[in-house]
């Protein structure tokens, strides 16, 4: 299972790699990182349907996570990849907007990786 993680902070890569090190070691997961919305779009175009799950930050310079979400849901109709939003801004407005645009889940920072792992399991089964 290939997961695309989108965040403008580079440390996110280290964090995710460490938290999912067992899954990576076992070959259950493969993590790909993009540090902006634009980069994520480029990756999606180049490697169509490779990533089944996208974890995206919302507040990023340039293309925001919500825009990225809209693009993905518009462009990749059958079957669209699962998109989960991860943001520091966990207010209702942000949440509702994400859901409207078709987000499959909405997580807030600091990320609770235990629950994230459970969600990934249920989503992917």
């Amino acid at each position, binding site marked *: 299972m290939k997961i695309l993680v989108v965040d403008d*902070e580079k*440390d996110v890569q*280290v*964090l995710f790699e*460490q*938290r999912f090190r067992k899954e990576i070691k076992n070959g259950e997961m493969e993590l790909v990182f993009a540090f902006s919305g634009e980069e994520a779009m480029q990756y999606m175009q180049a490697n169509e349907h490779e990533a089944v799950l996208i974890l995206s930050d919302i*507040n990023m*310079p*340039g*293309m*925001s996570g*919500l*825009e990225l979400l809209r693009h993905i849901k518009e462009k990749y109709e059958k079957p669209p990849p699962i998109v989960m939003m991860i943001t*520091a*801004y966990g207010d209702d*407005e*942000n949440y509702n*907007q994400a859901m409207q645009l078709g987000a499959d889940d909405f997580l*807030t*920072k*600091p*990320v609770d*990786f235990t629950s994230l792992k459970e969600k990934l399991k249920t989503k992917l089964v």
Partner: protein
Amino acid sequence: MKYFSKIVLLFFLPFFATAQQAAPDSLKNRLLKATNDLSRYKACGNIYNYYEETNRDSAYYNAEQMLLLSRRHNEKLAEAYSLIQMGYQLIGMGRYAPAHQTLLEAFTIVENQKNENQESWPVSSISFSGSNRLLMLSYAHHIFAILMWQTDNKEREIFHFKEARRISTTINHSIRLGLANMNLGRSYFSIDKPDSALIFENQAKEEARKSGFKKYLGQVYQITGEIYLKIGNRDLARQYLYRAVQTSAEQNNRNSLSGNYFTLTKFYLAEMQKDSALKYAMLNLSIIKTLGLVTGRTVNLGTVYENIYLAYKLTNRHDSIFKYQELTLVTKDSLSKIRIKNLTDFQTSSFGEAIRLQNLEKEKALYQNKIRTYALLAGLGVFLLIALILYRNNRQKQKANKVLESTLANLKSTQSQLVQSEKMASLGELTAGIAHEIQNPLNFVNNFSEVNKELLVEMKDELKKGNMEEVNSLADDVIDNEDKIIFHGKRADAIVKGMLQHSRSSSGVKEPTDINALCDEYLRLSYHGLRAKDKSFNATMKTDFDTSIGKINIIPQDIGRVVLNLLTNAFYAAPLPPEGGFKDPNYKHEPTVTIKTSKNHPSGGRGAEVLISVKDNGPGIPQKVLDKIFQPFFTTKPTGQGTGLGLSLSYDIVTKGHGGELKVETKEGEGTTFIIILPV
């Protein structure tokens, strides 16, 4: 009048019974048939003309009737005309004092320019299209000159004749001009200037020819004759004297005829021609009695008797000589008495007039003094009033000043409150950003801590297994993660400190500050602050930092506030379309905000400077707004969204607080760049 008549009657009663020569019936009938005052006035005028030089009493009576009629209708110029005619007749009667009064009255009318258009009633037997007032003025001067002549005032006689001549020339009135010339000729002849006199008489003849008015042409011929006699041309003199008699008789001007006869008598007396002398002397006597012209200056009953007496003296008729000698003496004596009385009256009258004029002058002076005093008092009053008003104004101003002072104090405190609220507003903008922004480092701190815990558990397992290589690798990961925990922990600390710094009032203390770090921090804060408030908000952020700048001495909270303010404005402006929208509808506008730092080396009298520029690609600032952007409370944001103090405060912080400059460069449709210039 009555007094004089009585004297005349007493002395000459026998002659007067037959002396009256009646006016033609046609003239009298016209008067009787007249149905209105204007017709009556005209009829009286005609009768006056008939009697003018033939019967003084009748002429005077008719002129007086004209006066009454014109006064009844307030016909001012007609009134003056009547008065002048009356004056002329009074002069002929030798009554100089009333003549003088009458003429002065006429002058007051004709010298008043308000009477210019009083022309409805005729003031001349011959129609005239020019100014009747000036015609009457000329006439008044003429008759006044005659009065002066008759009362032996040569200087004023000539002056008034000249005035009459001047005015008649102005109005181009041939008759009056001719008459003035004739009399001026006589005046100059009497002062022994026969040459000048002859010129005037020739001009008089010319005017009479032009106008066809020959009533006084006999007199002109007579004076011309006298002039020729004086310069020794006796033949020419006699010819003129005969033409004079002929003309005066034709014109029925008996006054002139009397003078003509008188001169002719003198001529023949000098020639020692007794018959001719006696003939003309006797003819003169008959005329003078019918006229009532007994009191003339030169020609009068006494001088006529004298001529007869002198003519008889050339004969040997002793009884006649004696008789006329006696008559001459008695008449001359009585006439002389009358003349002396008339002259005395005249002098008294004119002296009285002089006194009256003098009194008038005095009164005028007194009046002027009074006026001056009143004016002075009025001026003083006005001055006092102004002083009072000024005093009141001053008092009111003082009161107003007190009110203004307290208002100013209120304003100042309000202003400081507003400044504080502006700070709070910008803090509010920040808080949302900060509160969430702090979650990002916390995310790392929490998760790396948890990871480390897991790693350490794993490490324990590996230790038990004695797999030291794996233990070593895990320890390295833990150390790396701890570094990250420390880094992000500090980051959270900095965010909180930054917020606190911002909300704190400025310490006012300058400290070495990394300007690039400061700019970066506020760029993130403002961007995320705005994103927190408006989810749809998006803009590209660009940075261009000059890393060679190092630390500079500034008050970090203050400059931070300025940078934050400029960034907030830039983020607000960047997505806005230019006025009138984008030209190309397919153009996709990418809102971009660039923050740039740079360093200027000393040049052109300027020291080293650090520049911070904040650039947006928004619509730009219109010129009309540009002048106001640094004014307090000026804002283009919708009501309630901006305090209008941001740029004003920023300007004060940069210029007053740091001795720097805050510049703005803008181009409509392309964007705006704010540049903070700080001296190093």
